[in-house]
Each structure stands twice: as C-alpha cells, then as structure tokens.
C-alpha cells in the first residue's frame, strides 16, 4: 500500500501542470486560432447552428438555480443484489464531481439511472430539473460510457463525418470544427474510425459526448485506455470545457486525476455514499497518518510491531510507516531504541483515504502497480520492498 504512493505521485504532476496551463482565458483563445480555417470552410454548418439556437425554446423553470442532478432515496436491486441502497446525492450546476468506489459500489448503476437507461425501482431522480429521459431527449446531457473491448464507434466512417452526424441529432449543437479542435481531433477528422488507436477512439467518444453542447456531462472511466500524456491533455480539455459553467460528473480509478480535477469527491460503497467532500476533507477524515524517517539497516518486521502501525515499507534507508495513531507510533519508535533521523509525519493521501473508506485494496490501481512491481522487481535495481497490511 505504501509503495504505491510514490508511483502515483509521478502522473499527478503533469495533471497539475495542465491545470495551471489552461486558464479560463487561455484555452479558448488558442482554440479559436486553430479552428479559424476550419470554421471558414464549414460556414454553412455554423449558420445552421446559430439559427437553431435562436429557435430554441428557453425553459425558465429548468434553467434556474436548482441542482444539476439529484438522487433522493434511490433503491435499485438486481435480483437479490442491492446496487443502490437509499442513495441521496446532489450535484450543483457548474460543479465537477468525481464518483469513486470499488467495482460493485453502484457507480455504473447510478450513472445509468441518471442517463435514463434504467428506471430506479424506488426513490426519485431529477436531472436538470426534469426526469432523466426528458433531459437526455432534450439534448442537454452528454455522456461517454465505458465500452468493453470495442472502440465504441461504428466502422466505415470518418471521424469528422461521425461527429457531424451526431451533432445533427441535437437541437443546438456546437460547431463541429470547434468540437474536433477541442477534443484534439482536427488532424484526425479524415481518419476512418477503425484505424484509430484506443486513446484516439476515446477522444472521439469524448467529442460525441460534448458535440451537443450539453449542460451536463457524464464520463465513465474516460481515460482508461490513455497513456500519461493522453490523460494529461484529456483533463486539460475537460477543464476548459467545465470552466464554461458546465456540470461534469466522472467516475475513475485514477486517484491522481480526482485530486487534480474534481471540485468534490463522492465515495460510494455498497450502493450508498460513504464520503462526500473536497479531496482535502476526505483525506482529513481518515485517521491514517504517514510516518517517514531515515534508519539505515532497520528491521521492517520489528517496526511493523510498533504501536498503531498499519503498514510498513522500506525503501533503501528510508522507512515509511502508515499509522492509525501517529503519536503512539512515534513514542514507541523512540522507546524501541532504533536509531533514526529526519522524521516526518504527514496526513493520509487520497489513495489511503479511498482504501480506508471502501476497504478495497484491489481497486486502487496504484496498489496493482505496486504488486506488479513487487512481483517483477526483486531482481531490479530497486531496493527490496516489503509491504504489509493488516
């Protein structure tokens, strides 16, 4: 568990860079430049969309202050399995919300109900002030669903054609060239969909989710097939999109993304919300503290026996202890007579919080990384790593 925190610190930093690099003013400006040529070429399409905008009927009762979405007392079962257990959840307009939870926590069921793909068996759900199906039919909701093995795209069509066709299903779509530029697809517009890489296909699916100019977007594991660079640019474009006052709800297993992107985090477990708040709030709610110090040649087995220690890890001369009672651990460490220096006590990171809240080790992807590294890494240049979890 401990090993992993280092492995996810690396991808976290590019996301943070992306965040500062794409300010609210900067991103749209550069985008306009790059799409100007395309806009000129497809002026026809732009004019149509402007006309449609004018014809669109504003619905004052829906566009008011109410939440973007609300679950109240929602229960949903699959035979004997309870997927949602009296779920209450509210998301404000303009908010970017991360939905976390192990597999089977009810995230996908919640999302499918929000999208109108399933009806809740009990309780009430409202999306943009109306029921989920009406919200979807009105074109104000966009979604990027998880696809199993496939690309999620039809074959025999070019990217630009697919996005254009989808845009015409909406009453007031964004101009296609703008959507393509936004999803980083301008250069791929003429590419056949079956010739796209996994990450490219995912960007196309993102374009399909936003081309309708939705007020609310759902993204279910949007970066699952992307490399670090792909994820970085994905969240950069996502941020410029959400900064226009849109509501974004996403589910992910990449906890570093959550920390960098979400305004608020909702952790689900067994069909209910177990934690709800900003990343810092959620981290603070977890009693785990991290005790770090240098102690060359220390015996990890002995350190693991210290009061309050939940897990211990040795990296070269550095020792990292996860403790449920940092004060007791430090006192015990001093009493044990082990020589140490440079001691540091820090709060839990999001991954530790996630594991503590859900009791789910397998789904913190970085833990998988750590295990994989441990399996293959004994003969590598890395120092031997030990890990225990009670």
């Amino acid at each position: 568990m401990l090993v992993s925190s280092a492995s996810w610190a690396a991808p976290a930093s590019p996301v943070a860079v992306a965040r500062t690099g794409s300010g609210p003013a900067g991103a749209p400006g550069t985008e306009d430049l790059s799409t100007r040529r395309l806009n000129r070429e497809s002026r026809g399409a732009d004019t149509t969309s402007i006309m449609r905008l004018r014809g669109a009927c504003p619905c004052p009762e829906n566009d008011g202050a109410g939440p973007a979405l609300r679950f109240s007392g929602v229960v949903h079962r699959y035979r004997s399995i309870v997927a949602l257990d009296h779920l209450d959840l509210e998301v404000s307009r303009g908010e970017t919300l991360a939905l976390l939870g192990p597999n089977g926590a009810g995230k996908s069921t919640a999302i499918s109900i929000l999208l109108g793909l399933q009806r809740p068996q009990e309780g009430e759900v409202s999306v943009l002030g109306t029921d989920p199906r009406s919200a979807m039919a009105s074109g104000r909701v966009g979604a990027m669903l998880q696809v199993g093995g496939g690309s999620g795209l039809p074959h025999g069509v070019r990217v630009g054609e697919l996005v254009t066709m989808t845009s015409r299903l909406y009453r007031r779509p964004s101009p296609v060239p703008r959507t393509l530029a936004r999803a980083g697809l301008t250069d791929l517009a003429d590419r056949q969909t079956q010739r796209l890489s996994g990450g490219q296909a995912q960007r196309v699916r993102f374009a399909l989710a936003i081309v309708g100019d939705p007020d609310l977007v759902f993204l279910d594991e949007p970066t699952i097939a992307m490399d670090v660079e792909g994820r970085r640019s994905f969240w950069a474009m996502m941020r410029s999109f959400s900064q226009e006052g849109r509501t974004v709800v996403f589910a992910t297993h990449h906890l570093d993304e959550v920390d960098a992107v979400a305004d608020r985090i909702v952790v689900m477990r067994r069909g209910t919300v177990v934690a709800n708040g900003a990343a810092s709030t959620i981290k603070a709610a977890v009693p785990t503290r991290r005790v770090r110090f240098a102690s060359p040649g220390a015996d990890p087995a002995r350190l693991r026996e210290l009061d309050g220690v939940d897990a211990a890890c040795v990296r070269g001369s550095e020792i990292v202890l996860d403790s449920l009672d940092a004060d007791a651990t430090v006192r015990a460490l001093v009493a044990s007579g082990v020589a140490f220096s440079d001691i540091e006590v820090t709060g839990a990171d999001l991954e530790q919080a996630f594991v503590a809240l859900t009791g789910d080790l397998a789904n913190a992807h970085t833990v998988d990384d750590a295990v994989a590294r441990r399996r293959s890494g004994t003969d590598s240049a890395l120092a031997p790593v030990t890990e225990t979890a009670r």
Partner: protein
Amino acid sequence: MTGLRTFLRFEVMRLLRNPRYVGISVGFPVIFYTLFLHNEHPAAHIAGTTWKTYFMVSMASFGAMVAALNAGGTRLAAERASGWTRQLRVTPLPSWSYATTKIAASMVIALPVIAVVELTGLLLGGVRLGLATWAALTVVLWASALPFASLGVLVGFVASSETAYPVVTALMFLLSFFGGLFTPVSDLPVVLRHVASFLPSYHDASLGWAVVAGRAPGLGDAGILLVYATLLGLAVTWRHRVEESRAFA
C-alpha cells in the same frame, strides 16, 4: 425527426461504402443470374412466363434478401459488441430508432439491388416487359423484402459478432435454395415443396412470378409475408427491450 433522417442517411452511406457488402448484395444475384441463365433454355416456358424472366425475378428477390439480411445481421452484432449501440442511447435519438433505422436502411439498399438485377435481365437475358409490369414487379419485390430486413436485424440482436456472419450466410442459402429461388419449386421433391410453402423467400418470389406472368399477385403470398413481417418486427422489439434492460446489469 431531422435526427432520424440524418441517422438513416448515415447508415445508408456506410452500407454503400462497404465494398464487401455491395459486392455480395449486387454481385451474388448478378453472377448467379449470368451463370444459371443457360441451365435451361432462356426462352423455355415456366409458370406462365419464360425462364430468363422467371429466374430474373428469383435473383432479384434473392438479391434483395441478401442485401437486407447482411445490412442488419453482421454489422448490428458488431456494433453491439463495440459499444456503439450504447453510445447512441445517450443521444437525443429515441431508443426505438436504432432498430427501426437499421430496417429502413436495409430497405433503402434493397431497391437499387432489385433494379440492378432487373437491368441485368433486360440487358443480358433479353427480358422484355411492359413499363407497368417492370414498375409493379419492382414495387412488389421491394415491399416483400421487409421480412428479411427485420430478420437481419433480429439476427444482429440475437447473435454475437462472431456468430452473426455464419448465421446470416446459412439463412441466405437455406432460404434461397428451399424457397425455390435457384431451382423452380415445381422441380423440387414433394417434401421440399411443402417446406417451400412455409418460407418467406418462396412467397416473396411468388408475388414477382405472378406479376411477370400477368397474373394478379396472390393474396395468400402477401398475407404470409405480412405475418412474417409482423412476427419478426415483434421479435425485434422484444430483443431490443431485452438488450436495453441488460445494458448495465
């Protein structure tokens, strides 16, 4: 409704752009017509018309059937597997429109396929019919392609992306052989003649054979096709419901 039209145009465009699909749908009936035209004397009399005309009708209905079955079956199964059908469900398109549009697209393609086979009959087989008969024949064959369009979509919903192609191919050959599209039904053994009388492919071609022989199309044939179209349409609706309910379970 603009959405539906857009989606239909998109589906038809994708079908027309697929060389394998167009090759099978147009190539098979045209090649078979050319190959088997001289199995009998082209001017030989059969069922109140000539062999060249009779067989042109057989191949036109075969072509429409092949086009309709392939348009739905294989591609739909692949799109279900890839997740595209689910993506469409999170657009403003009404949920019934996917299957409906697939059926409509099959029908749109079936029409030119019938026309191409008729043209082959006219140019290669020397088939001569009055303008009204050509028109009536085209309309009758086109309308009776509907059960096959629904059948193709049904296969696409039921089969996996691996099994859809063999299932479609098997249906294509079973329906055409036992429906008397390659060997006239009157030449088949009695048992197979009974089998033929249950197959939509037989009744489809029968309507056309009646038109070219100057007879009124049989109401029985039309009725059976209508029953097939209705039952298959209901089956598609049912499978579509099943598919929707399990989308996230």
